[in-house]
């Protein structure tokens, strides 16, 4: 009940109600929900802003992320340069705005890799069951015992550097948790009466898997995918900070912080502000996914 009440409403408070017919009534509910949860509204706004940066950077800044004004190098934040400038006179705000596309692309790839691979492994393992399932789950346990960042680093070593490789590496590190959650849900769905009924009516195993088990087992993994977003932003930015992401002139968020390390004593804004943007995005993503987790739980 709360899910139906709160979740779509907070979305409609920002985006117009697509159905329109219940307009005034629903919008009133949305306002009330928004007032009750100001943190969530703020999180949605932050996420929309960052998404806007990623898709339409030219709407948010008129400067170029790669060419600077040498005369204005290392200017402190102010009316002219909101986030200040770096050692080449490039506007830091512009670089953060353009960096959003790279960092969010990497995050999306990471979550997609973990989601697709993990879900497939969990689905097959849970459906086949038996000894095969035992072996796969032991492997998943082992993957979970290796810290995620270290696993990502090992994959990066093998694949080479770059934004996409970093994204894949971060995704690989989350495959195990997706597989485990998916397998648990497949196990639950498999014993449902309608699956038994489908089996008895002679529906083939692949069809049962895809048409009956998969839709019922997808809920928790989708919530997990939402939860993984914040973690993926963090992991991608950490690997980019360590210098394994895009090569230097590219304005990736972690790399921006890393570039600013040489000016820690003289230009605090070069590390502090891009890092703050990363922290705010992760916080927003986590806040939204927690709301989805809590409210989405009622659907299951």
């Amino acid at each position: 009940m709360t899910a139906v009440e709160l979740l779509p409403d907070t979305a409609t408070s920002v985006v117009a109600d697509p159905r329109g017919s219940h307009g005034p009534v629903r919008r009133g509910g949305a306002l009330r929900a928004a007032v009750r949860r100001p943190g969530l509204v703020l999180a949605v706004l932050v996420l929309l802003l960052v998404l806007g940066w990623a898709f339409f950077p030219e709407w948010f800044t008129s400067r170029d992320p790669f060419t600077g004004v040498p005369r204005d190098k290392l200017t402190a934040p102010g009316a002219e340069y909101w986030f200040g400038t770096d050692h080449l006179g490039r506007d830091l705000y512009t670089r953060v705005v353009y960096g959003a596309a790279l960092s969010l692309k990497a995050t999306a790839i990471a979550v997609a890799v973990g989601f697709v691979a993990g879900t497939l492994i969990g689905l097959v393992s849970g459906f086949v069951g038996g000894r095969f399932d035992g072996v796969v789950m032991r492997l998943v346990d082992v993957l979970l015992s290796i810290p995620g960042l270290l696993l990502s680093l090992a994959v990066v070593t093998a694949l080479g550097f770059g934004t996409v490789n970093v994204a894949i590496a971060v995704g690989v590190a989350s495959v195990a948790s997706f597989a485990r959650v998916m397998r648990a849900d497949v196990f639950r769905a498999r014993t449902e009466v309608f699956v038994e009924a489908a089996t008895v009516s002679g529906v083939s195993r692949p069809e049962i898997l895809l048409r009956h088990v998969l839709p019922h087992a997808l809920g928790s993994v989708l919530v997990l995918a939402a939860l993984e977003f914040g973690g993926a932003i963090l992991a991608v930015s950490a690997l980019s900070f360590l210098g394994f992401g895009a090569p230097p002139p590219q304005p990736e968020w972690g790399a921006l912080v890393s570039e600013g390390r040489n000016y820690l004593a003289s230009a605090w804004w070069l590390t502090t502000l891009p890092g703050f943007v990363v922290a705010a995005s992760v916080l927003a993503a986590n806040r939204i996914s927690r709301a989805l987790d809590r409210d989405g739980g009622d659907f299951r």
Partner: protein
Amino acid sequence: MTASGPAARRAAALRRGGYGRYLARRAAQGVFVLWAAFTLSFVVLYLLPGDPVSIMLNATGDGVGVDPGAVAALRAEHHLDSSLVVQYLYALADAVCGDFGSSIPTGEPVTRAIAEALPQTLALTAVSFTLAVLAGGGLALLSTSVRWRPLRRVLLSLPPLGVSVPTFWIGLILLQLFSFRAQLFPATGNAGFSALVLPAITLAVPTGAVFAQVLAKNLAAAWRSPFVETARAKGLSRTHIQLRHALRNGSIPVLTIIGITVGQMLAGAVVVETVFSRNGIGRLTEESVAAQDIPVIQGLVVLSALVFVLVNLAVDAVYPLVDPRIGRLERRRAPQEALA
């Protein structure tokens, strides 16, 4: 749910045999994890697209116009000219004897490189872990004891904040405030305890936040349980209940996440040691990845699995002693089994 899973498995394992057999089974599982971690890292590092020999030659900087003889020699040295299975068996046999090969750029044996870096990181992790337990535990106790709602909400919102903030950013902010502005602590290096303070705090933030989250949740659950109601009915003070009853019950599930947490601290050291230019396992990892030094990376993956296994074995050993319910279950069952 995640906390009850391992706990239930432990209880079941303990019921099946005595304490000794329980530990032996746990140790055997640990050996399996080690073997699997080795195999997994072998698969990832040697079988993914990308020729190890060309990576090695690129890493040493003479990738252009290499003598084919040198390539062949390097292949033979690493058994890369034989089949994959043979390569793997060679590597596994060496690893069992404690030989993980040598670093490609420096030629130093992997085990020695790791052994030299390990003490620094162990010191960092130990201090940081203590900090995380104290701060996280304190925060959880405080946030469940405070009854003034606004303060309680602020305290409860701190752990999610700690989990969301990038470690490298915390480190750099601490550096700016306490090394460059206030000049309280040295910015870089390994010298003495004062150089350990800022890195340890940085590394403790995400871990402490996780501890605080788990403990606060368990404390809240304990406060809703009947035994707390009984204690309150007896007229015990809230502080007494919190410390003697709720904390004892609430801290048991925290034990189960220690293994993962310590592993994550080792991984976190990669970022923290880079930020503070400290020597240690993290720095070694960062440098090895930058140089695509495959043997060292493999050694480090196995090391992290070893740490995970050892910490979990220690937790397994302590668990039945800390949680009397597991031991008592066994004792209660024993007479029935004797009768049957």
